[in-house]
């Protein structure tokens, strides 16, 4: 449905997106995950025909975003970052304006208005002016305008930013609901969000794709891996490093020497191994005292942090 091939976007000397390729299948919900400034918004602006890529091609349902821009725009409903709205307009006036530009007319208009008002739950505020609305309702108005022409594709740029936890859940449900019949791309910098809503995740960092796959696939790539945080007393730092390096399944992630001489180590342990006993024996033979040893399993959050640091 959406085909991005070798796309690069530069702002002067700065490359916001670097040679990115990916595809989105029809009916798929794709979560765009990345830290702030990773290039998510730039990518979305190119897909929605706001600006062209510096190099590479993007096509939407077979239409090129530059040469067949109008056709692409008709297929897409777009909710830009921070939900820009005309503050001084009434909610109904605003939706009528969007329907006007999108050429949703007559009986179709009436049906479309009823549909978006019920889907986004706007009936309570439909007679208010936009500047009177809470953040949550503003977001719903943003959604309503994006779906008023019943587009095949929805592009949502950070749709849950700035909402309270209840509103976030409502918006996520809305994305899932809309995703049943539409192709959806949405961006976020929150891990749980993609886990909760998307079929597939694309992790983007510094303008490049760092990883992609379903949440399960990404988790599987690190399945069974464990963190092991240890604090040791009376241990010699260089000896400890030597010992850790001698065990193949353990990788040193961080090592800190505390003021009192204790060693604080963050270790990563490969899948399928439990080395706690072995480490205990090593500590005893070296006359180290283990003050703390706490294992924890890897989460998707770790994948994200690892890939985007």
């Amino acid at each position, binding site marked *: 449905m959406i085909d991005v091939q070798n796309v690069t976007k530069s702002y002067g000397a700065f490359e916001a997106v670097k040679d990115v390729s990916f595809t989105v299948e029809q009916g798929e919900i794709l979560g765009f995950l990345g830290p702030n400034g990773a290039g998510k918004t730039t990518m979305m602006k190119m897909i929605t025909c706001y600006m062209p890529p510096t190099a590479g091609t993007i096509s939407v349902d077979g239409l090129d975003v530059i040469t067949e821009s*109008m056709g692409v725009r008709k297929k897409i409903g777009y909710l830009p970052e921070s939900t*820009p709205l005309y503050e*001084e307009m009434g909610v109904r006036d605003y939706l009528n304006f969007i329907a006007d*530009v999108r*050429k949703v007319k007559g009986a179709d208009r009436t049906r479309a208005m009823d549909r978006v008002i019920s889907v986004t739950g706007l009936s309570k505020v439909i007679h208010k002016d936009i500047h009177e609305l809470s953040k949550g309702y503003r977001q719903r108005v943003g959604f309503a305008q994006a779906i008023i022409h019943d587009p095949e594709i929805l592009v949502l740029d950070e749709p849950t930013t700035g909402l309270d936890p209840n509103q976030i859940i409502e918006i996520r449900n809305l994305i899932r609901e809309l995703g049943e019949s539409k192709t959806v791309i949405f961006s976020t910098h929150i891990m749980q969000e993609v886990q909760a809503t998307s079929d597939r995740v694309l992790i983007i960092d510094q303008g490049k794709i760092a990883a992609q796959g379903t949440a399960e696939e990404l988790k599987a790539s690190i399945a069974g891996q464990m963190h092991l945080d240890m604090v040791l007393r009376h241990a010699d730092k260089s000896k400890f490093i030597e010992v850790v390096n001698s065990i193949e399944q353990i990788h040193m992630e961080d090592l800190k020497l505390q003021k009192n001489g204790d060693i604080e180590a963050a270790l990563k342990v490969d899948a399928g191994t439990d080395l706690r006993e072995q480490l205990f024996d090593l500590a005893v033979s070296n006359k180290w005292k283990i003050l703390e040893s706490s294992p924890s399993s890897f989460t998707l959050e770790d994948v994200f942090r690892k890939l985007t640091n």
Partner: protein
Amino acid sequence: MSEILAIYRKEMKTYFNSPIAFIVISSFLVITNWLFFDYGDYPFFAINIADIRGIFDYGAIVLLFIAPAVSMRLISEEKHQDTLELLVTMPITDMQIILGKYLSTLVIFAIILGGTLIAPISISFVGNLDSGIVISSYIGFFFLGATYLAMGLAASSFTRNQIVAYIMGIVIIAVFFLMNGMANGSGLIATLFENLSIRFHYQNFFRGVLDSRDLLYFISLIFVSLLVSSTALASRKSK
């Protein structure tokens, strides 16, 4: 066309939902009529001649400050609120956006023009107005206002700040208005400046003659201003 009208209707709603339209229209009419009837060395009531030229002389100056106030918000507000991004990603061309917005300001100006009819109508009861001159003067005044508004729109398309748009608009209009005073004599430069100046072409309408060169001049300025506005919107499209 329906896209242009969609933008036009939205802008009209905005003008009339807020005090902007009311303030702009009433301030122009109050100031201009006051200047015409009761100000300066030759106030209408003192000179006792059935001539309404003063309306258009004073009007051209007052409008220099009023027209950019009408057009300053057109694009800069969209930029400031980030609504422009949504607008230009809908199936509508940049020129359609510009034309819809421009049309709304022309309608506001038409209301202003309607308001100035008080002078010729009331004077026609007490004296003999040359209706040919009145009509050609009104046509000139319409093109003058239409040009100011297009220039104000162009200024608005370069900034996200309405105050900057307003002042830029005034400066651009003033430069074109006063251009004939920038070079003296009868040399090539002086003739060029004169022919490029708004005031030079505007004055011709008061003789009661419609010269196609004057009309062409104003239409060209409007066309170029709208093209500049649309090009400014398209600047996002640079690769």
